[in-house]
């Protein structure tokens, strides 16, 4: 049976009738700046559906982002948001989660923000495995700055005046890198499959450690050909690999268009430095006495 948010709810609990939050509870009402048809709209919808499914109090959720069209998402939600600078969403979220483990911390942004300017943080966030869910709206282009190639752009794409002959360089394989670097949950989704996306987001949020959800989210303005993604993506037939070798092989062999399934789920415990207040400051100060 295909699982949808509705039947997942039905399957799990009949007692959810008095739920305080529906998906609209997670919308701020601020009107997105996004172009009509931008894939990011349905990411927003799927996210609010996922939060409604989880019934998380909006004040217990924080959504952190960098800069880009996609990074505008926090202000459109009614959870706590932090809209930082380009490429630095992951460290902001890491500092927040380490000091506030009680919060559900989500991170969102584009492929440029996460894999180019923020690429180093991506590697180390995977390694560190803090309990975060990283939502990347990958449109293989810099939307906000009007259409330059990003790390995931195909080498022969000639749509930007900056790279008139194409970039000529190998595209970045975010999920292969995520797996190699230690991410604990890896999935690829398509914004055009919002119900599936919401389900995967639910599981990503629930899974401990660093969860990476790459979402193919078309930029209809600077990559109008991405409107055809709805025809070229494939829903994966089988999901969930817990064996890292199988997951790696599958990710390496894929053309990047297989969506809809969890591609890896690891068991590493999340990184959360423990620090119980053992002593007091006077004890520290005694260390300086001659």
């Amino acid at each position, binding site marked *: 049976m295909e699982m949808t948010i509705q039947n997942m709810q039905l399957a799990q609990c009949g007692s959810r009738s008095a739920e305080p939050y529906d998906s609209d509870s997670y919308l701020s009402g601020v009107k997105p700046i996004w172009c009509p048809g931008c894939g990011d709209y349905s990411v927003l919808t799927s996210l609010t559906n996922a939060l409604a499914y989880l019934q998380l109090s909006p*004040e217990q959720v924080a959504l952190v982002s960098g800069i880009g069209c996609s990074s505008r998402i926090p202000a459109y939600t009614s959870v*706590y948001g932090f809209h930082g*600078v380009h490429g630095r969403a992951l*460290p*902001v979220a890491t500092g927040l989660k*380490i000091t506030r483990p009680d919060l559900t911390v989500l991170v969102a942004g584009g492929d440029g923000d996460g894999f180019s300017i923020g690429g*180093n943080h991506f590697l*180390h966030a995977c390694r560190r495995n803090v309990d975060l869910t990283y939502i990347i709206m990958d449109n293989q282009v810099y939307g906000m700055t009007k259409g330059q190639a990003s790390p995931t752009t195909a080498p022969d794409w000639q749509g930007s005046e900056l790279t008139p002959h194409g970039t000529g360089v190998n595209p970045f394989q975010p999920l292969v890198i995520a797996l190699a670097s230690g991410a604990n949950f890896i999935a690829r989704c398509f914004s055009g499959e919002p119900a599936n996306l919401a389900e995967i987001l639910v599981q990503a949020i629930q899974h401990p450690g660093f969860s990476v959800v790459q979402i193919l989210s078309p930029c209809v303005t600077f990559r109008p050909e991405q409107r055809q993604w709805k025809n070229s993506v494939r829903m994966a037939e089988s999901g969930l690999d817990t064996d890292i070798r199988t997951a790696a092989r599958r990710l390496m062999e894929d053309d990047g268009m297989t969506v809809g399934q969890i591609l890896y789920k690891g068991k590493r415990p999340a990184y959360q430095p423990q*620090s119980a207040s053992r002593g007091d400051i006077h004890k520290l100060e005694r260390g300086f006495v*001659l």
Partner: protein
Amino acid sequence: MEVNSLSIIVAGSGGAGAISTGTLLLNAAGLGGWYAYLTRSVGAQIRGGEAVAQLRISRERLASHDDHFHVLLALDWKNLGKFASEMPLAANGLIIGDPDQGEAPSEFLASGARLAWLPMKQLAQTIPGGRPNMVAMGVLAGLLGLPHPLLDTVLEKELAHKGATALAASRAAVKLGLEAIASLPPIARLAAPQMSTEPRWTITGNQATGLGAIRGGVRFVAAYPITPATEVLEWMAPALEEVGGVLVQVEDELAAINQIIGASYGGTPSLTATAGPGLALMTESIGLAVASETPIVVVDVMRGGPSTGIPAKSEQADLNIALYGLHGDAPHLVLAANSVQDCIFTTQWAVHLAETLQAPAIVLSDQALGQTRAVIDRPPETIFSTKRLTAEPPATGAKYRRYTVTETGVSPMAIPGTPGCQYTADGLEHSETAVPSSLAVDHQRQLDKRERKLGCYDYGDAWADVEGDGTLALITWGSCTGAAREAARIWREEGRQIKLVSLRLLAPTQPDKFASLLDGVQHALVIEQTHSRQFLRYLQAHYPLPSQVECLNRPGPLPIRSSEILGKLAKWK
């Protein structure tokens, strides 16, 4: 002859133990009731380069090194001659070399100091496990007149963990050193200490910075190691655990600054420590802290720049980047510690100001403060009632306005978890309700608000240290304050008046307070350790200065010494 203070140098190649000899002597002197001041200087090589411990011991409180050193003891010479300019010797000084280590470099002999030989290596070899630096400790302790039982106490305290055999070997080597001084020419005698009832502390500037941070309430640190700031982190990592905080070593300074912004957004007072190269990487995000009104503290332990510069030696040349390095109009706090002990107060105050004003504070320290170990009086407990202005859950229906314009410019900050106050903190310009806005009116309003909250706050007296009076003033900041204090003390001992002004709060500027404290001053000498007179230019840009102003400036690594300051003042006698 009896003197109030004696200054010695222990030098050797890295690994020879010069620094630990210096530290042990400092501890012994401190236990004996003297004040002591130990700077270490290491060469470019991490191991095997030259390592120099410069130690001053005095019956009076110490602010800096003396102009000259009375004793230079070299365990070996290696490249030491090249650095002779950093180790000026008194004309009646004493150079002690080991005959096994070759000739003494001519650069030192030029000072006129006497040269004596002591076979420290051979003496050490007579004891199984004996080390020349322990023989040296005995020699120097003897010359300084430190009571022998104290040597035993510090050896026991510092070396017990190495095991009984090692401790016994060290004791025996120290004893040989003590006996060997009979063959050396005499040096001046150090005046007996004034005992204090309260036990004194021994602390480095970098540790003091860490303590100030923890006293201020910092419970999260994210940082990337860099000389000479790393010891701030090394001290803080276990110390934070003790008080329920966390230190995270991160992938780079971009992560460091943004992690502390995230932690502070979540309500935890947070800090990072770095040096110039790291501060340069952080500047974009310090602007984010300004715009999003997130309190953070960034400590810059300055070293020679630009670029990799001179990593292990001091300079004050990050002043400009600290003051002006942020893009846009970005009012923020810049503070500077002016002594080893003041690293505690200034850092604590910085945390207090950052939290109170919801703004980033940059604290400037430098290698000369950070890596100096001093014996100090027990520092007073500075109590600020530091509490961030936070938002309470609003009455039903009321919309929370994170960036609401208030009279003080400070608006209640909602901490995630507070119901009904969800907002998105933003580096994008925003309206009072935290919605992104590019409207001229919102930009103007928020710029005014952020400027006003720093501008109209009353910083009290701590913004500057002002000592003495007169028509002549020394104006300085940071580690140069030590030599300026020493010069002022000598100047006053000669029966003259002088006012010393050391600015602790560099931004926002305090023109009215500055004008009133310079009232009646006719001549001023500005003292700083930069090549391009950054501090003088800053003063000229922001403050009314007397008509006669001179500047004594020099880039690192050579410190400015009190005799040079007195030399500059001579014409105003």
